[in-house]
């Protein structure tokens, strides 16, 4: 379903990145990093008090000819970015939301592991397997 899922920390350090197609990893990483500017813009406190600005889900950040990039920021300023293929018209917004929700759940579980030091890259195999499942669309 998704082609790339990534988690970026408070200080914009990459914590986790996985792609469906290893050959395109560099290009997708570039897309994710470009999305961070949009995330920052959307999280500005001065932006008008729109009702949806209080939501953790940020919606679509930007789209290119080949990809759509969605974003999500937790209360603790951890950013989740999911890249989807533009050709995938069957994918609905609700499904993207559900992916973020599942990802957030996995992330909180991973952080609550006492052997994981916050701010370090996520290297847990269990976490990786679960994220791969989300990416495949059967979480």
């Amino acid at each position: 379903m998704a082609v790339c899922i990534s988690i970026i920390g408070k200080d914009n350090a990459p914590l986790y990145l996985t792609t469906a197609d290893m050959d395109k990893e560099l290009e997708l990483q570039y897309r994710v990093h470009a999305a961070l500017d949009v995330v920052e813009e959307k999280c500005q406190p001065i932006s008008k008090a729109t009702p949806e600005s209080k939501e953790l889900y940020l919606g679509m950040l930007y789209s290119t000819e080949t990809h759509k990039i969605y974003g999500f920021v937790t209360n603790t300023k951890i950013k989740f970015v999911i890249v989807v293929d533009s050709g995938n018209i069957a994918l609905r917004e609700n499904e993207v939301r559900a992916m973020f929700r599942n990802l957030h759940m996995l992330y909180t579980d991973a952080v609550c592991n006492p052997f994981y030091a916050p701010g370090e890259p996520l290297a847990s195999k269990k976490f990786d397997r679960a994220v791969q499942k989300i990416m495949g669309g059967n979480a």
Partner: protein
Amino acid sequence: MSEDILFDFLHSEIVNYCLNNNNKENDFSSLEYIGFNTGYRLIERLTRDVPRFKDELETMKFICTDFWTLIYKKQVDNLRTNNHGMYVVQDRAFRFLTRISTGTKQLEHAPKFVFFTCGLVRGALTNLGINSTVTAEVQTIPACKFHIEINRN
């Protein structure tokens, strides 16, 4: 409510472990650090379905109501602020002190039961982007006051 008592037991064991292990009677730093670590990780889970916080006061309110309820099964009794980064949280029946008799002799032992919570609050606030110093004050058991000072720099 059988699951609640487990937390009380665990907490008193943590206190015991931290203070008796190295014969450091008055070293509360490891106790505070365990609290910090717990708060830092726990807040990630507790704020999962909560809308984004608008400002510092909203974050403090969350700590006093939702956060406190989830951990201590009650809300704080009073939250005061001078609007310059100083907050005072008052709990008239602090959970870890309710099982202790009231008396001057017991009052000496009160500090060790509040340091975990100091760390817990500090950890939670740190992860939400607020750097703070948390101290506690016990004048009469089981009431407890937490002073939260926001460090702005």
